[in-house]
């Protein structure tokens, strides 16, 4: 009797251990599966992107159909800089001011509502931002333009900056605010002279994340900035951008153009990854300092 009960218990324990092993294996498999796409994408972007990089790639506009490999995408780099730069000028002040309201003044229903809207706006389909700006601004101006692209991207960057900045402002120790207020400094000066500088690096992080997001967006500028084969520095004219050029060339049958697309992909990836990894490193350091 006792012996059979013991073997029964041993069998149960064996089954339990087996299940546990299988589950642990499943967890590690999930980790492995998640790594595969990143590895594969990085591999192809480097392998096919590196050969595309040349002086011409960075300094020339697209060449004619006779010798497409002689051309580059300088107009895309300049255009991306113009569009995202203007988007920063619009969205960074708006995003930071919103975050200041939420973290320094915001209480009650209004603040909850703004915070909630900021959160769900992070899920705005990017094509919708482009479509709305296109329907309003492009229609009114009767022209595709860099500024329309900037507005569309600003719609996406604003909530990103707000969320990230609010989080960092909340890490600023309450004692700093109280101390400054006790010295008789008005609240707005406390915010601008004490809170914001203390959070400085963190706010920079928020901006970097937003710029990374803005640089990589294609759909919003597809319907607003349109793209162009020429270097353009005017906010009021159709303008090219790196993701737009990749989108265009990727679908061309010519091998040479596809290669340029891969070149665009590797430069875009490097830019975006430097910004977002840099932001992560900075913010980890900042959080350690404030906590």
């Amino acid at each position: 009797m006792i012996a059979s009960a013991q073997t029964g218990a041993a069998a149960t324990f064996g089954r339990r251990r087996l299940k546990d092993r299988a589950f642990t294996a499943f967890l590690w498999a999930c980790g492995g599966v998640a790594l595969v796409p990143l590895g594969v994408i990085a591999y192809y972007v480097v392998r096919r992107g590196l050969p595309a990089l040349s002086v011409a790639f960075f300094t020339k506009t697209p060449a004619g159909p006779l010798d497409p490999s002689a051309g580059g995408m300088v107009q895309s780099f300049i255009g991306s800089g113009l569009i995202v730069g203007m988007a920063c000028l619009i969205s960074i002040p708006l995003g930071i001011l919103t975050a200041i309201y939420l973290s320094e003044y915001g209480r009650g229903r209004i603040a909850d509502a703004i915070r909630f809207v900021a959160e769900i706006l992070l899920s705005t389909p990017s094509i919708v931002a482009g479509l709305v700006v296109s329907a309003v601004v492009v229609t009114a101006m009767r022209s595709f333009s860099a500024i329309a692209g900037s507005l569309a991207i600003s719609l996406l960057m604003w909530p990103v900056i707000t969320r990230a900045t609010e989080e960092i402002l909340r890490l600023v120790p309450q004692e700093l605010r109280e101390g400054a207020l006790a010295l008789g400094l008005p609240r707005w000066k406390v915010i601008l002279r004490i809170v914001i500088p203390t959070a400085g690096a963190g706010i920079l992080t928020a901006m970097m994340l937003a710029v990374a997001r803005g640089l990589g967006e294609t759909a919003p500028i597809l319907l607003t900035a349109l793209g162009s084969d020429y270097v353009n520095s005017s906010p009021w004219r159709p303008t090219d951008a790196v993701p737009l050029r990749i989108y265009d060339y990727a679908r061309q049958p010519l091998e040479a153009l596809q290669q340029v697309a891969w070149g665009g992909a590797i430069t875009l990836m490097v830019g975006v990854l430097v910004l977002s990894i840099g932001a992560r490193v900075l913010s980890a350091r900042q959080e350690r300092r404030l906590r």
Partner: protein
Amino acid sequence: MSHRVAEPGAASARLGDRAFRGLTLAVGMGLIAVLVVVLWVLAQGGAPALARFGPGFLVGRNWDPVHQSFGALPYVFGTLVTSAIAITLAVPVAVGLAILLNEPVGRAVTAPLASFVDVLAAIPSVVYGLWGLAVLSPAMERHVEPFLRATIGRIPILGRLFSGTPSGGDLFTAGVVLAIMILPIVTAISREVFSVVPRDLREAAKALGATRYETIRMGVLPYARPGIVGATMLGLGRALGETIAVSMVVGGGRSVGASLFAAGSTIPSVIASQFLNAQGIGYHRPALLALALVLVTISLSLAALSRLMVRRTARLLDGGSVEGAAEGPALEVSG
């Protein structure tokens, strides 16, 4: 208080305070205004199409700008199918990954793993699209899809999904790309949820001699379930709205059939490919704006619902630490 008012500069300081507070509040309200304007522009612009075609707009199969007939079923279908594939593939992996990253063991390996998954979130959509088009599609056409057809394709009912000629540029490939793209966000939200499940539940289960599997199944998962549903809904919302990568690999067809190997289109992809040519009079432009209204309504509602569920989980489990953290430092000295 009264002696401060008499001080020179106090009044101006208060004025400055009020002005600054007003400015930040106005900008914050501007964010809400953005949401309202987006919905209004789409509703205004899409109204003619919705009025003209009625419910047939969403169930009609015929989308024909030349003859001014607009039924969006193929696009609605493509959007739902690709997103469903993405959720099916990504959620189990994301939840498993979140559990793994939440476990106290193997930190030396899991900490970098977490960073790698975050990097996945930073890759621009168009790079996913380029890779999907140039690398994944051919691989799907030549290897993965024939294999699935020869295996799952033989099972009676389920097999219909994997029947037909593999083409690579199809609903299935788009679903796979989407799955990779939403993996980081679903993982991140699931981790957030797991991290608020009280430690003592785990400890109690462990103290009773439960294995790791049993601990997680009995002490963690039941409490995290609403949060995981929330994470899934957010992932779904993102998948529905993804544009560029999907439009590059989905094939551009109008399939509404059972086969996942057929070329389809999604709402975002059709907006991206047709809006520039829809500037004339007629119902083409209103129809696209109406589609965008449907899309944005669904994906923002999903995001809102998801947020509410994750918050509720956090509040139930943690006595409101998420909410509490959000309200903590706000010092009310205004007015």
